[in-house]
């Protein structure tokens, strides 16, 4: 039994951790200024979030819009096609403040546990 357990390898996928955080990150980017899809993807990729090129951003934007945390307007892009521009709403700004507090608190607690207990004996 122990041997069989030792053979299994569990890989932590970034997407599992990313699910809870991506909405907050996207909201933070939109809060800084009115922006659009490609710009958001570029900023996320610049900060190392490589897994979001497969279109996962779009359901996130739709969810945020449904929750009335962002608003969307259709404008013309300098390249020609129409483009959706997103800006944060009042409710979104409040949500972002709560997210920042909660994220900071969870990160601190998780870091403390991992630093104290993680890695010992392995």
């Amino acid at each position: 039994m122990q041997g069989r357990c030792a053979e299994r390898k569990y890989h932590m996928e970034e997407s599992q951790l990313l699910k809870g955080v991506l909405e907050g990150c996207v909201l933070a980017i939109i809060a800084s200024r009115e922006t659009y899809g490609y710009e958001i993807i570029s900023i996320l990729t610049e900060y190392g979030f490589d897994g979001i090129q497969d279109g996962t951003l779009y359901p996130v934007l739709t969810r945020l819009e449904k929750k009335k945390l962002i608003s969307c307007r259709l404008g013309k892009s300098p390249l020609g096609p129409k483009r959706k521009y997103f800006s944060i709403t009042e409710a979104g700004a409040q949500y972002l403040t709560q997210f920042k507090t909660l994220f900071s608190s969870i990160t601190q607690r998780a870091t403390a546990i991992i630093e104290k207990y993680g890695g010992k004996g392995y």
Partner: protein
Amino acid sequence: MKNNNYLDEFRDQLSEAYLDKYVKIQQYILNSNLFYDKKYECLEEILDLLLSAQMDGKSPEAVLGNDVKGFCLNILKSVHSENLSIRIGVSVIRGCVIAFVVGLFFYLMSLWFGETLYVSGGKVSILMTYGLGFGIPTVDAVIDAFIRNQIIKQGGCKFLKIKTKISIASSVLVGLIMGLIHGNLSKTMKLDILFVDLATLLIVPVVIFVMMMILMYIDHWGGFQFMLSEANKREIKRRRKAMLREGLFKKYQRKKASKEKRGKEFTIDDFKRRQEYEIKLAHIVFCLSLPLYLAFELFCIVNLLQDGLVGNNFMGIVLIVIIMLVIWCDLKFISFKNPQLKMLEELQ
């Protein structure tokens, strides 16, 4: 077709590597079950994404990932979740409308050729009407899904060119199957259960449509709580204004594109003049029709109270509710005149 040509001018700016990806995405999206205008809205957004990435010198994989199908599914998921209730509502209404058309066809046939297995006592077979109404779109959706999968796996589908013929053949097959089932059931079951009258076939989609309009309106304005909240009335006004402004601007763009295609000039002032005329004319029509609706509503209420309307209180109440909603819509359109004229003045 107009939308397709409009996007082609942007598509032609894509390099070979981007174009290859875009063609696959285009085929996938165009064969999806999105509404027509949503498909082109999606494609336009994707074109902007690709052109932006191309301008920055990035590879297509940098914005699309390696899995085009996954990308398309995520895009469709975001659009579907946007309007899932509307899609369900429209699918149900479409099914009911097809059911009514089929029912009407069989009924008219029975008037000329006499009653058949599918028409009895002025009523039509439920299986033939609703069976075809919901069976045909379902089979169509399955065929679309199969073709989309083939496009993504193999870059194309040999059945795409004959998709219409396949759809027609499958519709006939569904009809035959429903007919056979009805034929078998009519031998073993009470005939009344298998038939439905035309009035019911007509009223059902109307009622569902009205309910859907109400739900869409409530959903659009953020739900009952949001609508009634004092703190959010400004947000409702702002969104209504933005919606009117965007609608006007889109209309101007469409008319301008149409005129320019015919080699004619069309300025914003031309549009404003024409639009002002249309708004004032529509206002007159809505004002003139309001007393007619009110008179009809009064007539229906009086008849209902006298128990005389269609011999059925429930139908009478439904009719009164529908006319009330029509009157409410009419009043809304009448009240739109001044905001629209003001919006027109601000249009640049």
